[in-house]
C-alpha cells in the first residue's frame, strides 16, 4: 500500500513539473551585454515574451564568440535567433548555419531600406540597427572638434589615445578605416597595421571591452578614441564630457543583424521574433536609448534625436561598408597579424 502511494506521489510530482515545460515555448537568443542588452530586453525581449507567452533565454556573447559557438554546435544548434554586428551572417549563411527568411514572413519588409534586406533568401538576416564608427573625444581637454582620422596621430595626445582590440567588431573596423585613410585596401592591410604601430609608439593603449573604455575616460586616461556613436551616448549619459564626430574621410557603418538559426524546431517563432525586432517602435526606442540608427523608414524620430543619429536612407547609404565576404574570409589572418603587432 505504501509503495503504491509513493509511486503515485512521484508520478504526480513528475507530471506537475513537466506541465509548464510543455505549455510555454522557449527561444534562445544572444545579446551583447551591458547597456545594449538592457535596452534589448526593454524594447524587444520582454514585450515579445508577454505578447506570445514565450520564455526567452538570453546568452551574452559578442559576434565573434557567437559565430564560434554556432560552428561548434552545427550538429545540434542551441540558439534560435543569433545577432551579429560584424558581418558574420555572410559566412554563417554560406555554411548553412542560418535559415533563409521568406520576405512574406516579415510584416515590415516593405518599410525597410534596401540594404537592410539583402540576402534574405540565402539566410542572411535583416539589419535591425546601424551604428556609426567615428571619433570620441573628451570635450574638456580637446578644444576643437577633430575633423580627420589623422587627429589620432597627434603626438601631443599620444598617451591618451585608446583603441579597441581586433576581437571587438569596432576594433576591426577601426583598423580597416585607418588602413583606407592611409591608402591601403582590403587585400593589403599593411598601411593599417603601420598606422596602429605608429599609435602604439605614441603611447596608445588597447582595450578589449566597452566598460574598459568608459573606465579610461572616467579616470582621465583617455582623451580620444575611435569608437561607435552609440557608446559615445552611453558615456555622456554616465556624466562624462564626451562628444562624437564623423571625420571627413568617411565613417564605417556597423550593421547589427538578427538571424534565424537553421535546424531548430521553432523557426516560425524565431522568424516572428526577428520580425518583431524590426517594428518602428523598437527602432525609435534604440535611437532614443543608445543612438542607434534605424533601418525602418517608418520609424519616426523627433528632430533633435534625428540629428544625433544617421537618419534616412540617403545618410545610411553614405556609410562605408567593407565587403563582408572578404572581411570574414581574411579576419583570422588579420587577427593573427594584429596579435603579432601588438604583443610586447
Amino acid at each position, binding site marked *: 500500500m505504501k509503495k503504491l502511494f509513493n509511486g503515485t506521489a512521484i508520478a504526480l510530482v513528475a507530471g506537475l513539473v513537466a506541465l509548464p515545460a510543455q505549455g510555454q515555448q522557449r527561444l534562445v537568443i544572444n545579446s551583447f551585454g551591458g547597456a545594449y542588452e538592457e535596452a534589448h530586453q526593454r524594447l524587444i525581449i520582454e514585450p515579445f515574451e508577454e505578447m506570445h507567452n514565450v520564455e526567452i533565454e538570453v546568452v551574452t556573447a559578442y559576434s*565573434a*564568440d557567437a559565430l*564560434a559557438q554556432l*560552428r561548434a554546435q552545427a550538429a545540434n544548434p542551441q540558439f534560435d535567433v543569433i545577432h551579429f554586428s560584424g558581418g558574420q551572417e555572410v559566412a554563417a549563411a554560406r555554411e548553412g548555419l542560418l535559415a533563409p527568411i521568406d520576405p512574406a514572413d516579415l510584416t515590415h519588409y516593405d518599410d525597410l531600406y534596401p540594404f537592410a534586406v539583402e540576402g534574405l533568401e540565402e539566410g542572411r538576416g535583416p539589419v535591425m540597427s546601424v551604428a556609426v564608427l567615428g571619433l570620441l573625444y573628451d570635450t574638456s581637454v580637446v578644444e576643437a572638434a577633430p575633423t580627420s582620422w589623422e587627429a589620432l596621430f597627434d603626438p601631443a595626445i599620444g*598617451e*591618451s589615445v585608446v583603441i579597441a*582590440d*581586433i*576581437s571587438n567588431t569596432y576594433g576591426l573596423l577601426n583598423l580597416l578605416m585607418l588602413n583606407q585613410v592611409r591608402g591601403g585596401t582590403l587585400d593589403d592591410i599593411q598601411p593599417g597595421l603601420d598606422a596602429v604601430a605608429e599609435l602604439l609608439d605614441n603611447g596608445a*593603449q*588597447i*582595450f*578589449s571591452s566597452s566598460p*574598459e573604455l568608459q*573606465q*579610461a575616460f572616467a*579616470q*582621465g*586616461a583617455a582623451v580620444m578614441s575611435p569608437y561607435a556613436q552609440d557608446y559615445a551616448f552611453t558615456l555622456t549619459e554616465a556624466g562624462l564630457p564626451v562628444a562624437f564626430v564623423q571625420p571627413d574621410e568617411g565613417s564605417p557603418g556597423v550593421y547589427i543583424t538578427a538571424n534565424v538559426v537553421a535546424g531548430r524546431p521553432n523557426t516560425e517563432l524565431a522568424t516572428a521574433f526577428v520580425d518583431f525586432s524590426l517594428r518602428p517602435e523598437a527602432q525609435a526606442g534604440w535611437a532614443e536609448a543608445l543612438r542607434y540608427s534605424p533601418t525602418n523608414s517608418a520609424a519616426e524620430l523627433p528632430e533633435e534625436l534625428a540629428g544625433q543619429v544617421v537618419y534616412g536612407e540617403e545618410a545610411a547609404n553614405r556609410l562605408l561598408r567593407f565587403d563582408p565576404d572578404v572581411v570574414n574570409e581574411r*579576419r*583570422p589572418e588579420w*587577427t*593573427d597579424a594584429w*596579435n*603579432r603587432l*601588438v*604583443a*610586447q
Partner: protein
Amino acid sequence: MRANPGNAADRIEPVVLVTPGLALIIGAFFFPVGQILILSLVPPEEGLSIWANFARFFEDDYYLRVAWRTLKLSVIITVATALIGFPLAYVTARSPRWLAFLLLLLTVLPLMTSVVVRTFGWMIVLGRGGPVTQLLMALGLGARDAALLHTETGIVVAMVQVLLPFMTITTLGVIASINPFLEESARTMGAGFYRTMRHVVLPLSIPGLVSGSLLVFALSISSFVTPNLVGGVRLPVLAGAIYQQATSVLDWNFAAAQSVLLLGAVLALLVPYLALMRRAQHG
C-alpha cells in the same frame, strides 16, 4: 569488511559505489581531453605530419615568447605566494584561537567574491588615476601617467592576491600538525628564532609548501581571466592565446596543440612531485 568474501552483494557493492564517480570523470574529463588530444594531432593541411601543429608552436617566435612569459610569471607568482603565504600560515597556526580565526577569515574571505569582480577591482586600483598611481606620484616615484595596469608587475600583484589563500591554507594544514614541543625543545637547547625556523619548522613544512606551490603553479600557468584583464591584449599568456585561436582565428587544431603543451607543462612538474612523495613514504 564482511568476513564472507563469496557473497555476490559484497562484490557488486564497491563497483556500484564507484561507478557514478568514475562515469563522471570519464565522461566529463577523459573524454573531452581525449578529443582535444586527437584534434591536436590533425595536421592543418594534407600530407603534413601529425606533429605539424606542435612544430608550428616551437618554430614561431611569437608563441615561444608567450610561453616564456607564462612560465616566467607563474614561477614568480609561485615564489611570491610562498614567501607571503608561509609566514602567514605559521603565524595563523601558532596564534591563540581568536586571532587564528580572524586571520583565517581574512585569508578565505576573498575567495567568497568572484575572481572577475576582484580583478575589476585591481584594474581600477592599478589603473591610471587609481590610488596606486597617486601614491607613486605623491612619493615622487612615478611619471605622470604611470600605471601598473597593463604591465607584467600588475599581473603578478593581482595573481598573488587571488592565489594566496590556496598557498596559505595548504601550508597551514601541515604547519598545524607540527608538534609545537619540537620548536620548544629547539629553543631550550639554545637555538634562536631563525635557527629554529630553518632547522625544525621549515624542513617539516616542506610537504605543505610543495603541494601549495604545485597548486599555485598549476592555477597560474593556466590562468586566463586575470592576466587577460590586468595585463591587457599586449601581454598575452598561453591560456589567452588558446582562447583567441579557438574563438577568433578558429584554428581549433592549433589551439588543441597549445592546450596539450600546457597540460604537459603541468604534468612535467606533477610527476616528479608524486615520485618524490612516493619515495618519501617508502624510504
